[in-house]
């Protein structure tokens, strides 16, 4: 645990170590968490439909053809994978937006994380 954590709990604004921390409304932090969780639930619903969902209805899907592929084969070989990639980039981008909205500064995060793990 870094120094910041020990110092953090001991006082408001300026603690005895001189670290500048302030208490924020719990509801603000909860709103941050809720927004991210809501997005994540949406991603997982899409994830489930394109993978498990498409497999479950593979037989009827095989009647449809797309670009020469039977549709169920297309989903397994390409459709699902491309959807996964898009979801990951959408998440990365939207999460950046949420961080910004709540005043999170990435440079400060970098400093806070230093030395907490292996630096390969």
């Amino acid at each position: 645990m870094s120094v910041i954590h020990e110092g953090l709990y001991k006082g408001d604004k300026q603690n005895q170590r001189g670290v500048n921390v302030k208490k924020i409304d719990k509801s603000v932090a909860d709103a941050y968490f809720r927004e991210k969780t809501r997005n994540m639930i949406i991603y997982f619903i899409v994830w489930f439909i394109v993978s498990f969902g498409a497999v479950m209805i593979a037989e009827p899907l095989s009647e449809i053809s797309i670009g020469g592929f039977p549709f169920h084969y297309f989903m397994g070989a390409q459709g699902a994978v491309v959807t996964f990639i898009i979801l990951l980039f959408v998440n990365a981008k939207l999460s950046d937006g949420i961080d910004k909205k709540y005043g999170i500064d990435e440079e400060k995060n970098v400093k806070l994380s230093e030395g907490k793990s292996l630096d390969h």
Partner: protein
Amino acid sequence: MDTQFLVSLSIILATFGLYIGIAIYNTAKQTSDFYVASRGVPPIFNGMAIGADWMSAASFIGMAGTIMLLGYDGLAYIMGWTGGYLLLTFLLAPQLRKYGRYTVPEFIGDRYNSHTARVIAAISTIIISFTYSIGQLSGSGVVIGRLFEIDAKLGTMIGVVLIATYAAFGGMKGITWTQVAQYIILIIAYLIPVIFMSLQVTSSALPWLSYGELVGKMGELDRELGISEYFAPFTNGTKWQFLALMFTLMAGTAGLPHVIVRFYTVSTMKAARWSGAWALLFIGLLYLSAPAYAAFSRFILMTKVAGSKISELPAWTKTWVDTGKLQVADGNGDGVLQWSELIISNDIVVMATPEIANLGVFVIGLVAAGAMAAALSTAGGLMIAISSAFAHDIYYRVMKPNATEKTRLNVARLSIVIATLFAGLIALDPPGAITQIVAWAFALASGTFFPALILGVWWKRSNSQGVIAGMLVGLAVTLGYIFAAKYGGFTILGIIDTGAGVFGATAAILANVIVSLATPAPSQKIQEEVLDLRYPEQMTYKNGEVWMNDDATKSV
């Protein structure tokens, strides 16, 4: 010694020289930069490094062959091994990054505040990585066996020496850039033959678009031969097996110690999200190409090789028959090789196809170098996971807390050598195809780490008794099911050994939840540390309140 041997060997040696050069350059640089903190690798390159770490002999050598032989049913590997990145990147990687530990057993030991849990996690790490490495050694045996035109068993022995040396004396520090180079080599080596085959068969340079019509065409050929269509779903197993295998591979992805550790090396939670996204993009390049590789290989085998006279088979058949992985037997004695008389192992399709399609010595050599890059980079990561689980988590944290760094390093190296030799011994007579062996490792990860990590990060009530029960039950159920299904013929809903993770994960989650609820809750401090993982680094949860750090000056 023929030209092919010389060209392949030169390309392999040249790429090895490149990896060693990068490693030496970075180690030297690192010593001079020793006191400069935070040289974060940009997420895009970290994504490539994760890709190289992740894509093993199973992805490179085994997967296209598995899809070729299983048809649609083989696509469970494609969706499973990519879909798991969502579980990993959304539910675990950023949170574990914020918690900040050196190894996965260390997270489990500290989060659950239990030495017993730490040791069980370390042993699970060793079992999982060990199983996984059997697949890598078996893969290097195929490559080396073909190169020297010797039995794959002898090739495996050479691979053991190579991988033990590589992992024990290199690859400890500054490996990220070496892995970036390995990714670039392996993706080029994979894409070139696919694109060449696409040009040859469909005269399109975009295999991803052009192989669709081939899939349909092969269905017609199959109907003429009276066998089930290539793309027909669930011909090699039940629908439940497909779903169970896909789940196992996804959950296993989110629970593999050597992959999770890569996310400890990114700078922040945000970097973890972006690294995960880039990693899947780079991995996706190969995974989108594997079914195309499979389709072209099968089409070429069906139309150019099957139907030719046994006495006039091209030279490549002999070299592959020598490795023991290809059989061409004229079963009905008519002097013609029928499709059903050609028995090809999953594991040689990728390696043999460039020869079959006559793509030239350079491409064949490149594919061999790419396969070695895939096997080496992953084996390196696996061996480091094994050695850190033993030397750091068991030997240092539990057995000898005052061991010197030098002793620990020697213990780490010794554990690598022993693990590689032992895995090599099993790989001499591999208990399954490469993809199958690797799928067992994923089943074990989904039965042990996946539940322990998900509940550890997202459920503050989960305690040490719960996680110990969960990991032991998950390990026992997964191992039990793999053996019962593979050797005892026992199956539920047609789910075979490779789908065992679905039972392991379910049993482990149930055991963890039930035992946790029946025993006292973890300390207030641990529960707050768990809630703290919901927020970014700048927010800290303490005593029911959230604090925002605006300076980020931690050294005062």
